[in-house]
Every structure is written in C-alpha cells, then in structure tokens.
C-alpha cells in the first residue's frame, strides 16, 4: 500500500480524500494556489505545497514534480481538474507514479465515448441513439445533418466530456451550430482538442448510474444504482440511492447490464455505468464515468463501503476485499449538493466568506464540506460548498431526515442553492418520487403556511427590517436597482 498520496484537487473532495487517507494511515500531500492557503484541505493534510504558476491546480508539470519531491507514490485526482486528463495519466505512468483511477490502457479504451457506445451497441445492449460519426467543431453542417437524422432534441457532446461539461442540448435544428460552438468553447477549456458527436436526447428522462468496482484479477462487483435526475442545466441538485422508481426486475436488469458492460470494455477501478431511462421504463446505456462522482456518498451510506478507500486499494493492485454476495445494501440515502450560487440571480456564483457555519449531525446524517466558520468561498473554483446526505431505513425516513438536516444547516455569508433544495425536499412530486430530468424546469411552489406561523415569520421579517435599518444596513430590494437579473418572482409564478 502507498505510504503517501498527493491529492491533486481542493474543496470538499480533497478534504474527503484526505480523511480516508488518514483513516488508512496514509500520509497526504495537499496542493494550494496562493489565495487558497487557508482552505480546509490544506489545513488537514500532512504536507502542503504551493502551486506557483498561473495554471494552478491544472499545472501537471508542477504537480508531477511535487509528487516526486515529496515522495508521494500515487496521485488522487478527485473529480474535475485532472481526473480524466489522458495526457496527465500518461505522464504519471512515465514518471513511475500511480494515478488513482483506472490504469492508462483502461482509460484509453473508454475515453472515447462514441467508441464505447459502438462497442456496447455491437454487443447487443441498448444504448442511446447517436451519430455514426464524430466531427470537428468546424463541421457545423455535418453535425446538423446528423442531428436531423436522429430527430430533436439532441445533445452535442464532446467525445471526451465529463462532469456535464462540453455537452449542450439543441432543441431545434436552428440551435445546433450555436450549441456546437459553446460545447467547443467549454471542451477546449477543460479537455483541450476534442471531436464531437450527436446523441438523441431522451426527455424527460431518468438519469441512473450503477456504481461498479473491478479489480485486476477480474472480479467485478456493483453497489447498486443511484438516480440523479433532478438537474438544473447540467448540474445535479439532488441524488438518491436506490433509484426510487424502479421495479425489482428493472433494477436487476440494470445491475446485470452494468456488470456486463464493465466486462465488455475491460473497465478496472471504481466507476459508474450511466443510463438514461424514458418514462416507459426503458433504459439505455450512455457512458462510463471512470472516477469518483460527487454523489458517491449516497452509495456509501447504503453500502457502508468507503469508495475512496476502494479506489486507493484497487489502484495499488489489490484484489477486491469483498464479493458481490457480501455486499449488503441497506436503507435509502438522499444527497443535496449545496453550491455557492444565487438562485435569485440566475444561479450566478456567489463567492465570499462564510461568517457562520453550523452543520446538522445525528443518526443517519453526513455532511461533506470544506466549510467552517470564517472560511473563504473563493470565486475561481467549483461552487460546491457542501453535500448533505441523509440515510433512513426507507425513502420516507431518509426524506424526513433530509428535510430536518436542511433546516438545521447554517451557511451564512454567501448565497447558496440551499433554499431551492429545501423547496425541492418539501415538494409533493419529490416526496412521491414523481420526478425526472425536466422537473426543475417548472416552478417550485412554496408550502402553504398556517396563519399563526405566517404571522411569526412576518414578525421576524419586520424585526430584521428594523434592525438592519437601525444598523445602517437597510435591506434594499436590490431587484429594483439592478436590472440584469430576473425578479425573485421567477421561482414562484
């Protein structure tokens, strides 16, 4: 086993990886950009090294050198940043460092999404419909022709995408070229040069991923599925495990399909086999996610398996320490990813300082976060601040516990998506699991209020208004002063 691991990431996922390293007795090396030196992942690590170039967390040359200087034998990329960067994975191998993820040959075999789709189709598994060819960003007309053949809406996707980046939906033929340009702009930023393909969009849909683990000895195990269909743009707002709408037969079918696809592609490590389902209950393979996902924690809650530990063990060449028969999935877990974005301003990023942080705790509640009272939420990074995860014996219990946990958490100082997630957590369609990828396009009703409770809240608002005026910090209805954002009504009407 590795004695020391370098973590090429920051924020909640870096903290989460450091924790598992410490639980395993492995030393951790954290990286930081100059402005990020107070971040929790730096404070908790065994060693920390400043990234001096402007490339920061993307500076692969510096990161490899730091690994060698500090004697770290392995690098955990987390999600985002370098997690799916083939050149970086190749450079790790050349430098004699272990990339904690699938081995290079496995990454190469599954990195081109359209090739994977073609192999899975050829093997007879249902996949989403996709264009036969891939295209340069300049081939707008060919892309449009391919989209026309599939029928709208379509997704224009980078062959090397991930984390919902480099993928844009076109509802109509007229949008294809613009979305291709946007996908290209974004993919360029994240993945470098890439080609594009067109996927027929299933909408509304269920987005379901099966968590798989595969060792070098050929053993494949799954830890059940999770659903992440509550999306805003390409970002998942909430995730749960198990997926609430599946029949036992559908579930068994998805699990078997996922394991067979792992075998077919020769996938190794910890990953997710992703499917889109239509509302008739047909599921279609879309892609393999070869890294830890943000929402992996719901699977940890129902399986009690530490997925980062398994990633590390598998990357070290160990065989899986448990068989499929030993996996016990128990209860239900729901996760909320709270980001520093202002829902009342088009989800504009909202950096700042968290003046007050209070975390919910207790039986069945887990919070993954880098936040503490006084910590900075920097402008230049991913806006995820915290994941609140609630486990219960069944879905109803986990949902009530999530409502409770969301009501207890305090993240004061920056605007976050928390109010929206609280609305969702109380929404009747969420409560009865009647949701899909289009659900958040509709407006969220607020709960009815008994008059007495409304009066109490009105009193609170009046006191706050008076206190702020007295303190010379009046609550200005900012929407009346600045025009670029929509009014708060948007969420209501």
């Amino acid at each position, binding site marked *: 086993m590795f004695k020391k691991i370098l973590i090429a990431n920051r924020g909640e996922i870096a903290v989460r990886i450091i924790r598992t390293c410490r639980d395993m007795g492995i030393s951790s090396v954290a990286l930081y950009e100059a402005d990020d030196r107070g971040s929790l992942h730096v404070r908790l690590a065994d060693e920390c090294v400043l990234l001096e170039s402007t490339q920061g967390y993307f500076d692969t040359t510096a990161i490899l050198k730091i690994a060698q200087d500090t004697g770290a034998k392995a690098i955990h990329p987390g999600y985002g940043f370098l997690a799916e960067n083939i050149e970086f994975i190749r450079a790790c191998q050349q430098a004699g460092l272990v990339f904690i993820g699938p081995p290079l040959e496995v990454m190469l075999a599954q990195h081109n999404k359209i090739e994977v789709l073609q192999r899975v189709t050829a093997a007879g598994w249902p996949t989403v419909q996709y264009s036969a060819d891939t295209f340069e960003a300049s081939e707008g007309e060919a892309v449009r022709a391919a989209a026309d053949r599939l029928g709208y809406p379509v997704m224009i996707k980078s062959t090397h995408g991930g984390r919902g980046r480099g993928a844009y939906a076109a509802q109509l033929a007229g949008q294809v070229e613009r979305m291709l340009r946007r996908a290209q702009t974004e993919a360029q930023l994240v993945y470098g040069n890439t080609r594009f393909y067109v996927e027929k969009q299933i909408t509304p849909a269920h987005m379901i991923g099966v968590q798989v683990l595969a060792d070098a000895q050929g053993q494949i195990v799954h830890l059940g599925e999770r659903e992440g269909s509550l999306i805003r743009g390409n970002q998942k707002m909430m995730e749960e495990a198990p997926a609430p709408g599946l029949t036992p037969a559908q579930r068994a079918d998805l699990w078997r399909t996922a394991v067979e696809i792992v075998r077919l592609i020769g996938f190794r490590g910890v990953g997710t086999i992703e499917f889109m389902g239509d509302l008739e209950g047909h599921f279609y393979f879309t892609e393999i996610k070869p890294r830890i996902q943000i929402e992996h924690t719901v699977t940890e809650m129902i399986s009690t398996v530490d997925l980062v530990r398994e990633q590390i063990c598998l990357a070290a060449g160990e065989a899986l320490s448990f068989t499929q028969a030993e996996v016990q999935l128990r209860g239900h877990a729901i996760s909320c990813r709270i980001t520093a974005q202002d829902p009342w*301003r088009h989800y504009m990023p909202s950096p700042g300082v968290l003046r007050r942080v209070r975390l919910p705790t207790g039986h069945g509640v887990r919070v993954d976060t880098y936040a503490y009272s006084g910590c900075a939420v920097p402008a230049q990074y991913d806006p995820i601040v915290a994941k609140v995860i609630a486990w219960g014996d069944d879905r109803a219990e986990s949902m009530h516990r999530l409502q409770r946990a969301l009501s207890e958490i305090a993240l004061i100082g920056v605007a976050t998506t928390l109010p929206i997630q609280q609305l969702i957590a109380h929404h009747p369609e969420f409560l009865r699991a009647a949701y899909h990828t289009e659900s958040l396009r509709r407006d969220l009703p607020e*709960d009815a209020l008994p008059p007495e409770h409304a009066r109490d809240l009105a009193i609170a*608002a009046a006191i706050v208004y008076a206190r702020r005026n007295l303190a010379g910090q009046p609550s200005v209805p900012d929407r009346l002063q600045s025009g670029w954002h929509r009014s708060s009504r948007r969420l209501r009407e």
Partner: protein
Amino acid sequence: MSKVEVTVGGHTFEIEVNLNHRANHDLPVIVNGQTLTVTVPDLDAPLDQMEWIIVDRRPHEIVIDPELRWLRDHTGVHFVEVRDLEARVARPISRDGRIKAPIPGVIKAVFVAEGDRVEAGQSLFILEAMKMENEIHAPKSGSISQISVKPGQDVILHEVLAEVA
C-alpha cells in the same frame, strides 16, 4: 419606530416594531393593532442573516435573505414581501441601462453586436467564473449602444460590459 406591511405565505400583516422599547430580551411588537411580546435572545448580537425569536412559545430560528425576498425555517422556504409604510416614496426602478459584471471572471462569448435590438431577458454574454458559464441577460428591451468587452477578456467586479439604450 418602524412600521411595515409584511406579506408571507399569502397572509399580510401590518407590524410596528420599536427597538427602543425592549426590556432585556423582550420586545413589544404591534401586529394588526394588537400588541405582542416577542423574545429576541440575540438582540444585542451583531447583525446576521440568522435570527432567533420566540413568539408565544414558538421558537423560530430563521435565515433571512439579505434582500428580504425569502426566509427559511425548519418548515421550509417562504417568500416574503416587506413594504415600508413610512417611506412615502417607493424607490424608483433604475433606468440605468449599463450592464455590469456581477462577479469577476472571463468573457467566454458575446452574442450581440453594437446596434442590435435586444429584448429584456435576452442572453448577451457568457461570463465564466467559479468554473461555470453564467449567462448575462439584457436588463430591459432596447438597442445595444455600446459593448466594452470581447471574448477572452478578463473582467473585474462591476466592470461595465455593455449598455442598452
């Protein structure tokens, strides 16, 4: 003294608060003409978005939006509207057509050109910040009188990006 009309959850109340009339943690509040005593344990604490009051034995720990558009408590999120009954003149809606960067970042795309006619809410720019693309919309309908940025350009907070005349 402060007199406001507050609407929350479909109910509207006229409320008078006088912060000088407090006794220890207790504050008299007049709601629709009736006087109530509200306990505000943190009345001496610095201003915070989290407020903590007890009304008639009901404790409420509430987070209130800095702009008083919503508040959340353990029952969920509730929209709120506060009208100051003493400020006789409503604040005018800004007629300023300048579009400013709401966050520092990089302009990734510009969808319009000077002279273009735009509708209120139309997407004008993509501003990348916090690893996300953020659409910047037109504040009102009109024509673009000026564009001050181009793709790839770094912008600082509140930098003027364009103007709608």
